[in-house]
């Protein structure tokens, strides 16, 4: 596709439920990132995939958060046993490995945990 695609655009769930958020990066981009943006805040790094290397998980806030990237393309961010403080916009970005940090962002998934 032309840009980074994320689905769903909105997700409402009940506390304690698991959720899966999907990201389709730009074709040919080998780097993929997940960020979290709480209301009125900046973006908080969560996890980063680069090609076939082990992902950088240093930003994941707890072991309830995990992510996969299958076939070097699509990525899924999973939040288990959701809590109200998980409510935020989850943004995915992708970039080429050309040595610059120019990342292209999707529109995000707005997660609301009731």
């Amino acid at each position, binding site marked *: 596709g032309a840009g*980074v695609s994320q689905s769903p655009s909105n997700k409402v769930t009940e506390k304690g439920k698991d959720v899966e958020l999907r990201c389709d990066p730009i074709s040919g981009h*080998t*780097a993929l*990132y997940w*960020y979290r943006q709480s209301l*009125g*805040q*900046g*973006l*908080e*790094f969560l996890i*980063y995939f*680069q090609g076939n290397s082990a992902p*950088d998980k240093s*930003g994941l806030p707890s072991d309830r958060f995990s992510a996969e990237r299958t076939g070097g393309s699509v990525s899924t961010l999973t939040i288990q046993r959701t809590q109200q403080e998980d409510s935020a916009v989850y*943004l995915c*970005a992708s*970039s*080429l*490995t*050309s*040595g*610059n*940090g*120019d*990342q*292209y*962002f*999707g*529109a*995000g998934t707005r997660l609301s945990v009731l």
Partner: protein
Amino acid sequence: GESVGLHLPTLSVQEGDNSIINCAYSNSASDYFIWYKQESGKGPQFIIDIRSNMDKRQGQRVTVLLNKTVKHLSLQIAATQPGDSAVYFCAESFIQGAQKLVFGQGTRLTINP
């Protein structure tokens, strides 16, 4: 820990005026800086970047200034237009390889007609 912050959370300017958005960063090892624009309901959009071996870079109506001595970054927008109204974020990273970005809190810019 590492952090990037902004001096002003909100900024209002008259249409046609110039605006300046400021940012302070704390990691002196960062060598790549980016400004993003985020409109309501959308993801951040790349505006302009600058490497640490430069102190100024110009784009179309935008200029980024980097002062490494005081670890300060600014974004100047000339002849502002209503479409410039958005939240602006600075971010720091490293040139070598694709790297995670450390974002500031953001400044909301409002262009008054």
